[in-house]
């Protein structure tokens, strides 16, 4: 990394969100507590509150209590639900997302991880790769998280042994490579003692790399996808002061007053009459902006329409391949119709084929050409929607390459689009 890029990181006043994942008891909550403690991010009265809560349970100061706030979590020493907290270094502000390590709470882990730009994968040096290490890693890959810092925790319990570190590192490298995760750093730490978290360890002379805090400052924040063609999913249409305002959020590209746009799925081409933001005069808008537009011709628009640029439009399709992660207790049966939501599009579909059912922990194929999916399984499937919709592969445009399945009142699976037929 050259010095110019270094400067760019220093100037960055963005905050970066990262998630901490790993097997139960490998030390996620403790690491977070340590990060906060060593960066002086804890208010005095909070420290007092943790001491009080720890004392009531007859424990010493428990770092894990910082994130584990529910009574049940503290008493049982587990994390039930995902949570977020804020801390800053001199270079940047961070949001830490803590994700539960127990298999029962995997949908909470996914909820947390889906909001992150990077991840720390924590592994107990004594235990090595365990069930949730694998499942969480696989989910990170599926969510498209490309920046992963691997930390090997509890080094103090193996006398800071270099050989053991290299052994587990090798095991992890092989595994992460097999699921296409680009691990960037391997850091030997002790979260409870503080080695290589915010301060360089004095117990591991053999390790010449970065501390966790230093490695975090190397991560990159996500850049808005401006250079891609316009995608503006319609969220709603308001009638305000005799104006019909089409509202939504720009996912990719730029929209300008006066430009021609194409409305999918019907394909009408119309002109943008104005861009509407409350008490602002705007001529163009960029990705991430929640805006309204008015149009010149009186055509009917509704939620689920996708606005794009003529000539650079998305193709419509009703059949595509996807990987889905099933996350409710009830099985999915191939014959049932299910609702798919992708951006603001919502449509009934059928799963034509379940090519493979995969165990998300061992990553082994359980069955080929199956007719069901069970909780915590990944399916490689072929979906057929009732009508054609506007989608992309996940590798192409994430915003239109990911979807959820909804059953009854709840989201029951997340999926990414692998190929369009």
């Amino acid at each position, binding site marked *: 990394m050259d010095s110019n890029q270094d400067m760019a990181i220093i100037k960055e*006043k*963005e*905050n970066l969100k990262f998630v901490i994942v790993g097997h139960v008891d490998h030390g996620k909550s403790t690491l977070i507590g340590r990060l906060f403690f060593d960066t*002086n991010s804890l*208010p*005095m*009265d*909070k420290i007092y*509150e943790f001491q*009080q*809560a720890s004392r*009531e349970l007859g424990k010493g100061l428990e770092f894990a209590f*910082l*994130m584990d*706030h*529910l*009574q*049940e979590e503290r008493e049982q020493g587990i994390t*039930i*639900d*995902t*949570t*977020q*907290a*804020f801390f800053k270094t001199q270079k940047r*502000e961070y*949001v830490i997302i803590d994700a539960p390590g127990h298999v029962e709470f995997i*949908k*909470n882990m*996914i*909820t947390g991880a*889906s*909001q992150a730009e990077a991840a720390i994968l924590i592994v107990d040096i004594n235990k090595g790769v365990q069930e949730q290490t694998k499942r969480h890693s696989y989910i990170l890959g599926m969510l498209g998280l490309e920046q992963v810092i691997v930390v090997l925790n509890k080094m103090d319990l193996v006398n800071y042994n270099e050989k053991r570190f290299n052994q587990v590192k090798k095991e992890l490298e092989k595994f992460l490579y097999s699921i296409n995760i680009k691990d960037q750093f391997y850091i030997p730490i002790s979260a409870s003692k503080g080695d290589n978290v915010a301060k360089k360890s004095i117990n591991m002379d053999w390790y010449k790399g970065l501390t966790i805090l230093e490695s975090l400052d190397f991560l990159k924040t996500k850049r*808005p996808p401006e250079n891609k063609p316009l995608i503006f999913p319609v*969220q*709603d249409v*308001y009638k*305000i002061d005799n104006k019909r*305002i089409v*509202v939504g*959020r720009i996912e990719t590209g730029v929209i300008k007053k006066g430009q021609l746009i194409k409305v999918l799925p019907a394909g009408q081409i119309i002109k943008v009459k104005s861009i*509407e*933001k*409350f*008490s602002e005069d705007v001529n163009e808008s*960029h990705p*991430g*902006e*929640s805006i*309204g537009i008015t149009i010149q011709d009186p055509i009917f628009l509704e939620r689920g329409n996708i606005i794009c640029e003529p000539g650079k439009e998305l193709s419509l399709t009703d059949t595509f391949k996807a990987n889905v992660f099933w*996350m409710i207790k009830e099985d999915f049966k191939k014959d049932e119709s299910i609702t798919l*939501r992708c951006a603001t599009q919502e449509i009934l579909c059928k799963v034509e084929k379940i090519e493979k059912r995969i165990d998300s922990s061992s990553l082994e194929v359980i069955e080929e050409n199956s007719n069901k999916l069970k909780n915590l399984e990944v399916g490689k499937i072929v979906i057929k929607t009732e009508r054609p919709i506007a989608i992309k592969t996940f590798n192409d445009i994430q915003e239109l390459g*990911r979807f*959820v399945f*909804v059953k*009854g*009142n*709840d*989201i029951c699976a*997340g999926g990414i689009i692998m190929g369009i037929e």
Partner: protein
Amino acid sequence: MNHILKLENQSVFIIREAYRQFSARGRSASGGKNVAMLWSIGKDSTTLLWLCRKAFFGKIPFPVVHIDTGYKFKKIYQFRDKYTQKWNLNLIVCKNQEAMARGVSPDKGRLECCTELKTNALKQLITEEKFRALYLAIRRDEHGIRAKERVFSPRDENFKWNYKAQPPELWDQYKIKAKDEEHLRIHPMLGWTELDVWEYIKRENIPVISLYFAKDGKRYRSIGCEPCCNPIDSNADTMDKIIKELKTTTISERSGRAQDKEKVYMMQKLRSLGYM
């Protein structure tokens, strides 16, 4: 786009998403009455109100609810009435008349007082008005329990928050359907910090109650009922000074709020009973 604008745009997206799913447009003559916003008149909910005005181009299509315990600061009432008129709001003042008549008060027990005058007042209102979704300005950094929240968070008919089985949320896809007896708490500002709120208030010049600004070496950092709020030592009498103070403070925001303090799990208890 800078950090504050990202937050603003994301909040507007969430506000519109909830309105689309839960308002009764087209189904009842009363317009979008199945949705409402809670306005405590504090800095956060006033910011949320500002964001709602942005989302709906200055015309908020649903009622704004003030839960009045009778113990609020006098300035709160003045501020409320001034901006209700100025922003043309459809204000509902919500009180638990029965509990107030019984003389429920903080000195007789804070858990009961908060539960009766806030939670149960709101329960009565929801039953009466049949609201399906309520916007609230809670933030993750305020309290560890609130940090566990979802953006769209269901409450059952008894107002219970089932924190052990929260619905998944991913890629801005939320729980947009609910059983008839449930209502959804919508939290568009969950990802904001206290500092973000003040930086946004400054950027947008949002009016806030004068109690937040230091007078004689004291200011309120968090505002609720007068008997249960304590000011902090501070000389921050302008927005800039408050922002500066927050960047270096070692005291947490709600340190002056009694309901967080009484017992370690008081907030969890309050929230599991339906508290905000």
